[in-house]
């Protein structure tokens, strides 16, 4: 080892690496793995988030689901009769899966604000990783955590009388993965537009809950009814919101996979989610590169 000056008293094991071009793609891939790993490790260590992720579905499924169960079947509204061949518990279960995925996704996306200004992300922004890699790592990490929280709900399936098949679980995981990617991207898009943040409550109240409540996850729009009949049963504005809410279609396809009940064509849900994921990630990336 050649030392800088002859009067050097310290010995060092420092081994400078020859500065050759390492494969750009491999560096990005390693970095992507690092970013993803960090998100997942953080989530696993955060007991509060885990407790929230487990208790939320229990509350929704056990309390709300069981409590409203008797009022669900065979209701008569004027001329129209609802016949959804499921218990309320079964009906809202896929919605609760979506809710848990959404909560966790947005939660991890919100941490982008803090991370970017002070935390880890600042450090990453000055690394040799491209902005795309950084954002992709962050979103993939957040989606993975959200996916895990979605699976937590699936564990409760038997309490809701939902028979899970292996195929059904695989399909559900696939759908949850796309949904969590889309919602995490949405969270980042919102986070990028906010300069300060004082916690997660605002996001939860302004984004997640409205999306959830108008996604037909709490009540069905009866597919047997014509548009006119639907408008008789529900106010027009509500039907319009439900129909324009992309989450409606995500919940619907989850419902199709889990309890084999679809209000819309099954493919629409997948198409809407993939489109949302791509568009939202593109917007997030555009913002992120500019910032």
């Amino acid at each position, binding site marked *: 080892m050649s030392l800088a000056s002859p009067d*050097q008293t310290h010995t060092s094991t*420092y081994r400078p690496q020859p500065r050759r071009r390492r494969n750009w793609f491999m560096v990005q891939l390693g970095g992507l793995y*690092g970013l993803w790993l960090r998100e997942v490790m*953080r989530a696993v260590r955060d007991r509060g988030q885990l407790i929230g992720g487990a208790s939320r579905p229990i509350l929704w499924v056990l309390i709300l689901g069981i409590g409203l169960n008797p009022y669900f079947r065979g209701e008569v509204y004027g001329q129209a009769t609802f016949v959804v061949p499921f218990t309320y518990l079964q009906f809202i279960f896929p919605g609760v899966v979506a809710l848990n995925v959404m909560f966790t996704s947005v939660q991890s996306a919100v941490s982008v604000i*803090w991370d970017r200004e002070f935390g880890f992300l600042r450090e990453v922004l000055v690394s040799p990783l491209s902005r795309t890699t950084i954002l992709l790592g962050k979103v993939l990490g957040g989606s993975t955590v959200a996916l895990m929280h979605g699976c937590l709900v699936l564990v409760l399936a038997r309490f809701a009388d939902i028979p899970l098949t292996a195929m059904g679980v695989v399909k559900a995981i696939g759908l949850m993965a796309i949904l969590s990617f889309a919602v995490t991207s949405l969270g980042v898009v919102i986070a990028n537009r906010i300069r*300060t943040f*004082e916690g*997660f409550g605002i996001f939860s109240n302004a984004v997640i809950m409205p999306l959830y409540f108008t996604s037909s996850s709490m009540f069905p729009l009866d597919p047997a009814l014509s548009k006119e009949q639907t408008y008789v049963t529900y106010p027009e504005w509500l039907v319009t919101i439900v129909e324009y809410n992309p989450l409606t279609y995500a919940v619907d396809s989850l419902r199709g996979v889990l309890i084999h009940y679809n209000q819309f064509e099954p493919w629409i849900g997948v198409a809407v989610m993939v489109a949302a994921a791509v568009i939202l990630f593109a917007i997030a990336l555009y913002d992120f590169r500019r910032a």
Partner: protein
Amino acid sequence: MNETVPALRIQNLSKRYGRTVALDGVSFDVPRNQTFALLGPNGAGKTTLMHILCTILKPDSGVAEIAGFDVVKDPLEARDRLGIVFQEPSLDDRLTVRENLNIHGLVYGVPQSLRRERIAEMLELVELTDWADKPARSLSSGMKRRVEIARALIHDSEIMLLDEPTVGLDAQSRQRIWEYVRRLQKERQLTVLVTTHYIEEVETCDQVCIIDNGAVLAIDSPGALRHRQGEQLLKFVPRTEADRIEILNRFSDRLALLQGTTEIALKADDDFIESFLDQFGNRVRSLSTEVPSLETAFLSLTGRKLRDRDADAREVTLAFGKRGGEHTR
């Protein structure tokens, strides 16, 4: 790598936020393997300059080069050579020290075997090997800073940027941080650019650049800066009354202070002290020199110490995090 290229070259760098001028035509070079201090009051433009150097902020005009690579045109090459310690702690509190360093290594594309080796080596350097598997939140703020310094050196950084590395630390931790920085510089070819507003810390740096209101007020060695801003005083007590009278007559133009009947203080410079000692060395007692402090130099250049202003959005968020707000750990 070309040894003749300065580690940092900053030329005519300007940046404004709206109508506020953060940097106003700043220029300086930092030669390799030097410790270069940026000294200035809060809001002087130090952090803006740091952010431009680490490529997260684009300058309005001017050039900043890191080891010859322009931070705007060649940011990836520039970043690859930088090790950065930010002003606010940026360790991941939920991960252990080793995990923090490991993820940094992954992100910077350090191959696994080298990563493991460097982590062990750097932890040893900052004397935190015993803490490697403890979660980062269990460390004191001084220890966290040390981990951050270790982290900045996991990859092949040639230039370390330290933004207020010792702010908020106790005297002992501050001293230690500087010890590590100096040891590192001996062991590894490392250029250090540090911003600080602790004047006593820059005494040991090779060069000090005083900036305020986005402009460079002075660049020099700490000693030269001191001399430039005030004269040295030579204080002594003459042995006999005859000596006293002779000295007073001879150097009446240099007389600065006459204390009581014994001590005399003369304005002096290095040459004067030498010739004075030649002639009167054996005729005076209790000889001392008083060197003006950097503090006086700094105050006379900037005219003040601190500047108050409203908290911006960033500081509001930081305060939220300090209160332990959600998603900030």
